[in-house]
């Protein structure tokens, strides 16, 4: 069942990702991004990372994506405004991307991972464990991240204002 779920959600995320690239309309790209984010969140569920999945949904889909759509609305005049790259650029980019995908995939498939790559661990960290790790082992990054968020909040508010 998990395998089937993986294939379904992987297909959803991949197709949506392709949709992001293929769509010339930026709002449609953003909607496709919702598909990818949702698909990846479902993959987290499949991987037993429940906390991460809901964080992905609440922060990415509920927060960042709304912010992006907001940004799109503030910066474009009609739903149909789109900028396209030239054919040459697109061809080059596609070539590079294909090379990159093939290269990384080959690397991944040929690499020898330290443990058995096909036997998932039975125990996944629970929410409580992740929380405890955040407040013990990773306390400094956690606090730094909170300061960073504060700085970003102030910085974003400052930057978005027009100069007086």
């Amino acid at each position, binding site marked *: 069942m998990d395998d089937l779920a993986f294939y379904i959600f992987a297909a959803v995320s991949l197709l949506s990702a392709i949709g992001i690239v293929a769509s010339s309309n930026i709002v449609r790209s953003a909607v496709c991004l919702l598909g990818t984010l949702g698909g990846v969140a479902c993959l987290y569920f499949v991987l037993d990372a429940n906390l991460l999945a809901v964080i992905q949904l609440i922060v990415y889909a509920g927060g960042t994506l709304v912010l992006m759509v907001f940004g799109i609305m503030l910066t474009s005049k009609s739903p149909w405004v789109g*900028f396209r790259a030239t054919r040459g650029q697109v061809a080059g980019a596609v070539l590079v991307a294909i090379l990159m995908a093939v290269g990384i995939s080959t690397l991944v498939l040929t690499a020898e991972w330290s443990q058995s790559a096909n036997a998932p661990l039975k125990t996944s960290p629970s929410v409580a464990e992740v929380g405890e790790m955040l407040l013990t082992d990773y306390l400094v990054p956690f606090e730094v991240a909170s300061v960073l968020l504060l700085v970003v909040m102030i910085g974003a508010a400052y930057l978005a204002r027009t100069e007086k």
Partner: protein
Amino acid sequence: MKTDAVDIVLESQPDINVELNGSQIQHDLPTEEMLVNMGPQHPATHGVLRIVLRTDGEMVLEAVPHIGYLHRCAEKIGETVAPYQYIPYTDRMDYLAGMNNNLGFALAVEKLTGLEQEISKRATYIRIIFAELNRIASHLVAFGTYGLDIGAITPFLYAFREREYILDLFESACGARLTYSYITIGGVTDDLPDKFVEICSEFLDYFEPKVKEYNNLLSHNHIFVKRTADIGVITGEEALDYGLTGPVLRGSGVRWDLRKVRPHCSYDEFEFDVPVGQGLKGTVGDCWDRYIVRIQEMEQSVKIIRQALEKLRGTEGQDVLHKKGKTIKLPDDDIYFEIENPRGQLGFYVQGNGAAIPARVKARGPSFCNLCVTDKVCRDVLLADVAAIIGSLDVVMGEVDR
């Protein structure tokens, strides 16, 4: 990499800093101005008013009212029919206060022809009763729809519940519930039905405590006060400059009521107050003041009707309709006469040329004059405030467009 769309964006870019009232408005975010058509089909424009809003986000920079969607040549028709036949057309001007419109035109014509002195006392009191009942009905609609504009739906139904009783009273007297043509040249078309006085005073007993209910429900509601106080302030001077009349003028603190200062229809025999806006919740002349003046006027109308019902007791048997009303010929003269309508001063200019049909009829509608202040008040307000301001002006488009 230039595309057409980009060029359009570049060219049509208005200046971000808009100069208004001599003050520079700085905007936090780069935004674009948008022209929005509010109306003619919009729930908050009370009919077919169309307001073109120039907005920056939620901020309304400019609001230009466009009128004429309900134009029916009412004034021109006045030149083709006799005054007696013109009465039904006045009903359809301010369709929420038909009685008052009838009264205005009837009084103007009576003054012109000198019929004024021959109207019986009973007819006068009946006219006053119906004009004031209609004032209550009209203010009830204003109160209810103002609640709707602010987003409270329930007061509307309460207002209409009471209005139904008034309409029942009207129906019993003249058979119509909206376009009455009851007050006519030479008096009123028919005498009061049986038991009208008792029923009417019972209605007043029932209605008076309801005003308190409205105040509890809406007037002093925190959200309502927050939405209306200090919004759309019109100072007394501005109100006079713009020629505003009625509750809109009195809301700005100017104690001017034609029933007091130039009493028509023997209003001078009655005792009543003229409520004015005092800025209880905010500044004098804000939306809340205009609103509360209407509520208080309903109470005063109740007072007037009570007295009129008292005075009516000794007048049984008097003729309520003067025979000459239908057959008058207008002298070669003109007249302009104003009365106090629920919405303000309703004036009729009638010019005769010796025939039965007037040479010219012109109406000065209070809603029309009050509407002109929109442009001034709806600047630098939020979109939601536009609904609140238009609602507080209480315009009736039938009368604006005529």
